[in-house]
């Protein structure tokens, strides 16, 4: 399992690796789950109370289903850790942050300077997401 390189939360990390969505339904004590691109994120919604970690896997960076999975969970009120794992590249992490990811465990560690640049590059955004940033249209119309 790749190291968590960035984590934007203060609570204690969950040490256990995430179980599959199928196994999660059967193991009532599991608190960590791993979502593959084709998994239905909404299947987790009835169980959000006991989930402390969702790992969303990006087997290839070009498969963008994980961005929707992340937003769906956050929109449903999930407040636990949402960790991007797999082929997580420096040029995707800002998008991932906006979709609700708050931890990153890339297969290949990111260059720290490049990652800092990427996280801070865009101070303004056109769309509201659950990241809480005010979109440009909200600022225009105060």
């Amino acid at each position: 399992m790749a190291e968590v390189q960035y984590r934007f939360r203060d609570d204690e990390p969950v040490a256990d690796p995430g179980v599959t969505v199928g196994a999660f339904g059967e193991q009532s004590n599991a608190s960590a789950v791993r979502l593959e691109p084709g998994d239905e994120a909404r299947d987790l919604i009835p169980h959000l109370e006991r989930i402390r970690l969702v790992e969303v896997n990006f087997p290839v960076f070009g498969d963008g289903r994980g961005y929707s999975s992340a937003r769906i969970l956050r929109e449903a009120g999930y407040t636990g850790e949402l960790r991007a794992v797999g082929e997580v590249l420096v040029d995707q992490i800002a998008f991932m942050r906006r979709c609700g990811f708050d931890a990153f465990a890339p297969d290949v560690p990111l260059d720290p300077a490049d990652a800092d640049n990427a996280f801070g590059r865009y101070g303004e955004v056109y769309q509201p997401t659950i990241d809480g940033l005010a979109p440009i249209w909200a600022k225009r119309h105060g």
Partner: protein
Amino acid sequence: MYRYDTYDQAMVDARVEEFRDQVRRRLEGHITEDQFKPLRLMNGLYLQLHAYMLRVAVPYGTLSSAQMRMLGDIADKYDRGYGHFTTRQNIQYNWIKLEDAPDILADLAKVEMHAIQTSGNCIRNTTSDQYAGAAADEVVDPRPYAELIRQWSTFHPEFSFLPRKFKMAVIASDTDRAAMKLHDIGIQIVRNEAGELGAAFYVGGGMGRTPMIAPCINPFVPLDQMITYSEAALRVYNRHGRRDNKYKARIKILVHELGKDEYTRQVEAEFQHLLGQNIEPPLAELERIKAQFADPPFEKIGTVPTFEIDRSDPDFALWVDNNCLAHKQSGYIAATISLKPIGGIPGDASGEQIRLMADLARDYSFDECRVTHAQNIVLPHVRKDQLYALWQQLDAAGLGTPNLDLVGDIIACPGLDYCSLANARSIPVAQKIGQRLAAKQQEIGELKLKISGCINACGHHHAGHIGILGVDKKGTENYQLLLGGCEGADTSLGQITGPGFDEDGIVDAVEKATQFYLAQRGEGERFLDTYRRVGMPAFKEAIYG
């Protein structure tokens, strides 16, 4: 037209710096070409056969004269003196050096332009009617809605790695001049019986190897829910669109495989959910944008005595008849500058010509011009009594070709002369057909001919009254002929006539088709009308018999 505020400007400025950083990392070897590819693609930079190609976004095809002038300057400074206007109302440069690309983006940002999302599997440049704000038949100017979509789709965090590219168009008249139903999402702004404006959503159209006409999935989405509805349509696609086969990854395949009703049901369910997420910009934002598309200060008839066109010069009169469209404001006209000179490369203009068109837009058209999806330029608001002076300058610069929508007004993709995907050359075929039929084109009348150099259909061959598709046949270039395609309100897809032709053979075949049409046409019939009446077998007989 729309002007950036400090927020919009900050966005493109940040992008320039980001891309400069990405190019640096590539040139220094920190990222592989595979990792760089999606980054450069999302910035419109393609590695082609001979060089990098940079595609610059022209949102809904609208340009100020300052922007147009910059496009000419870039052609001279960074390319070999040419720009190529495209079927997405954009411009692309075919001879770009990677290390220059960040400087080009910086130059573009100075005139409120960019290359954001002009390629890649993301929401591309939103297109519109080239006569928006000028056409007499529109319900409203569609561009404010396109601008709202531009902002929403720019760096959308959820939809930047879609299964495939995603193209949207917005129109606001029943005469569809933007091939709206051949888009991933086509929106028509309509007025309902209560007099309210709303957006009709057509989803799942497209060309490529599996052409489809988009079905209407919702005839009236209120304007204060348009972005939320778009988000729902995209989310269903991002989650469920096919990713196992790039040739089946466009949304048209999803809509087709699920069926329109099931896709619509899923979108409506997602829409109901997203309505609770407060993602829609307020109507005040739409009003802010609309105010920037207010009519220019047209002069009213009566204040100027000679508001009429002097048709005494027959060459000019021919150009007026072919290339000009009635304007909503009496005394004005919308003029199309054809970038299809006989024997020329469709859509190409030199840096000098681009700058001249910029000057003419400033002097004759309230500082504004448009790029059309048929690869021409429109001056949307020309006072009729100034039209002759305008035409004289165009004609002197080789820009006065009177062939709008005639057989010489060919749409062609770059083809094998530039493109790494192409199977066959498009440009020489366009040039030969243009030359062969030059003397006959006025007699033939409206005939939209479109050429693609491969099955990806960038040259819109499915939608041509005559379409030509270049294929590779055992290592040699071969051309299939299609008849009966059409974009617009009566959209139809062309049908293949039969066995393909070599380069000279396809020119002969097109000529035979036009000869047969001339022999068969009834009163007032265009080529397409005659084809639809007479049918494929008779044309086939005339072409192959």
